[in-house]
């Protein structure tokens, strides 16, 4: 089988989507050695997998075009050229003209553009509003990253349940429990911060609900319970100026809340391991990998109980409503005061995180594509039989 993959999210400084594709793409040739894989992009990508059957196709025509437009326009031509059997749209956009007979698999991460449009960057919102619905309609198979997203698809867009499958992301090998003290010292030395800190990870954008964290820090400080700063790792995204205004208004200093910018992959395990607690107050997530990675590193997680977080984290984290800074602050203090609670949450987290495994997910995804391929072949065979009659 020849499988084409939209590899544009594999750029440098990957975020959630890029990591999802990378995690699966790395394992595809190993799990399904009989398939040919074509990774398409219009820019350079950081593909960490190689092999005879792995083809990296950088197509620079229409270089001036934004990626989504490029895919819409060029995707069909490329699919025809490489005689694909299946096309995996890793971002919910399909090429305008996919040749007939090519199986269309579309991954839908979340329905932010439908449910929380105000938190999305304008361009991404526009692109998804125009094309995502169409892609979801045309897809032969929709892959979501959580059951919550699948439910949303059924409820909000009326997609038939039989078309949707859920393939969870995994946790990369590097997220293992490190010695917390050494890890904290490494981070402290490298970034010039205190070796005692609370951690948060996420692009600085409204959906990640960082304003709640500012509020948490303010509450803790006003009670004299702020023992260590809050460090936020993540690139500056969009619509973030109200957040910085809020920090100024609350008169918080760099020693109390600090933004470290994008952290490279190799530092993240140390960043998680060294933290006193990991906070994740997001308003909406398709899956929410950072808290799972933090759990794998043995750090206690306090997360929001918004969509999909209860499904993904289960009872292995403390879940609080994303609009209550008080409850978050409360949980931080509880964790600090109660050793047993800390150990229990930690143990539950480590065990829960083990459930998410790239190997199993890659197998599952290939199995789905395979099944779809077989059933569509059967259909064409019977159609041919019918026409010859």
């Amino acid at each position, binding site marked *: 089988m020849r499988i084409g993959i939209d590899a544009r999210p594999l750029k440098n400084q990957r975020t959630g989507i890029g990591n999802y594709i990378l995690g699966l793409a790395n394992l595809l040739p190993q799990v399904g050695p009989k398939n040919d894989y074509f990774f398409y992009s219009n820019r350079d990508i950081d593909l960490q997998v190689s092999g005879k059957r792995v083809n990296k196709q950088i197509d620079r025509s229409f270089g001036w075009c934004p990626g989504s437009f490029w895919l819409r326009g060029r995707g069909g031509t490329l699919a025809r050229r490489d005689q694909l059997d299946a096309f995996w749209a890793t971002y919910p956009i399909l090429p305008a003209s996919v040749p007939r007979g090519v199986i269309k698999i579309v991954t839908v991460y979340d329905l932010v553009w439908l449910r929380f449009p105000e938190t999305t960057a304008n361009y991404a919102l526009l692109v998804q509003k125009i094309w995502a619905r169409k892609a979801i309609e045309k897809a032969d198979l929709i892959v979501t990253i959580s059951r919550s997203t699948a439910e949303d698809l059924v409820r909000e867009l009326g997609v038939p349940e039989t078309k949707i499958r859920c393939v969870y992301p995994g946790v990369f090998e590097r997220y293992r*429990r490190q010695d917390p003290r050494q890890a904290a010292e490494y981070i402290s030395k490298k970034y010039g911060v205190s070796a005692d800190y609370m951690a948060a990870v996420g692009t600085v954008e409204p959906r990640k609900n960082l304003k709640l964290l500012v509020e948490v820090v303010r*509450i803790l400080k*006003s*009670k004299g*319970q702020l023992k260590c700063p809050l460090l936020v790792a993540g690139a500056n995204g969009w619509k973030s100026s109200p957040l910085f205004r809020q920090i100024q208004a609350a008169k918080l200093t760099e020693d109390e809340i600090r933004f470290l910018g994008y952290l490279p992959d190799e530092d993240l395990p140390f960043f998680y391991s060294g933290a006193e607690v990991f906070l994740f107050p997001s308003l909406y997530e398709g899956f929410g990998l950072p808290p799972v990675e933090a759990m794998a590193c043995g750090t206690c997680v306090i997360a929001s109980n918004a969509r999909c977080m209860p499904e993904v984290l*289960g*009872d*292995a984290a*403390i879940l609080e409503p994303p609009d209550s800074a*008080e409850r978050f*602050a*409360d949980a931080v*203090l*509880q964790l600090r*005061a*109660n050793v*047993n*609670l800390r*150990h*229990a*949450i*930690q*143990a*539950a987290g*480590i*065990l*829960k995180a*083990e459930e998410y495994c790239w190997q199993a997910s890659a197998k599952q995804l290939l199995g789905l594509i395979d099944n779809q391929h077989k059933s569509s072949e059967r259909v064409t065979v019977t159609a041919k039989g019918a026409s010859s009659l």
Partner: protein
Amino acid sequence: MKIAIDTMFLRQTYEHTGTAVYLKNMLNECLRICETNSLDMEFHGFIGPQDTWNKNGPVSPYWRVHKARILGRKRIWSLGGMALRTASVRPDLVFLPTGQHCVPASLAPVVTTILDAIPRRIPSLVGRGSTRLHMMTWLNAKLATKIITISEWSKRDLIEVYGLSPAAVEVTYLGYNKQQYNEAPPDVGASAALLGRLGIRRPFILHHGMVQLRKNVHRLIQAWDRFRERHKEFDAQLVLAGPIGFGHEEILSIREASPNRDQIILTGALPGTELATLLKNAFLCVIPSLYEGFCLPMVEAMACGVPTVASNSSCMPEVSGGVLEYFDPFSVEQMAKTMIHVFEDSDLRKSLRERGLQRAAEFSWQRCAKETLRVFAATVAGEGRTPVDRSLLMEKSRDENNRAIRDAADAKFEA
């Protein structure tokens, strides 16, 4: 985090009971997981004055054993002795591997395993059981913070029978002995010796598990008669491997009445290794049971790569993941039909074998232990979250303040 475990079932006398097998395997895996992940947990067990299991019991830095003189007296241990002894350890959690043994103390949250609600569900098929055990199980179900059971089906049963909240019941699937039950071909010499001793000729159709009414062996014998009517040329035997149990008189009389009684062989109880050898030599395995909590025999058969057909009642389709051929256990007709169907279709047998192997590989004691540990951790965490010291926080309305005071008072009262 200290976890105290009722280790009465590790005593030599209970070595072969299901609970002992469950506790021993699960505990060993729990300790191994704690070691590999260096979790902050500590397991405490209790040993009576005459017991010897600590010599061949688990060895691990996460495992502590305490002497308990009252463990020698089973009744006293069950009725509060354990609670007293446990209190001195100051555990954060108490684990009872069976719901029949100890009144939980209010000193720590209790997690109890209740395998199934079979005695309450189908008393006519398993005998009434003692009132004491019923009372104990009921009490345990009511008092435990969390209850562990072994399939979604059992969970539903427990919720209905004991009126529990769904959130209080967790499912952890069991594991099986992979050293014995695996797809490796059987040892030729051992097979010949065993089959010769039991008077079995190949090919044979196997049922393993206790010969009792609940296992529906009587209808299996009738289905076997129908099968023979249809395929006289297939010179095979029906082997019933397992000890005899409740209602065996009826089963044995049906066997006597059968025209094929010479082809029906009762082996009696067999040790695990021999059972595994028998399974690996079987042509087909039939699981006609009327009611099960997990049905380990079915998983073992699947793990040995024997084509398996099973009844569609209770947990069977759930545990086998819907990959087998199923029949209505109350219909002799259907059971015979399914057996004939599988007998006639060799492709189907092959695919049954493969799908069974794949599904069985999903179960292991390690998985069971991991899920159990998660339940432990979540229970302790849930318990640790209740007393909220809200006075540390500012900015709250008077109502909230009052509630906080009330909560704190409640917490004290409960403690």
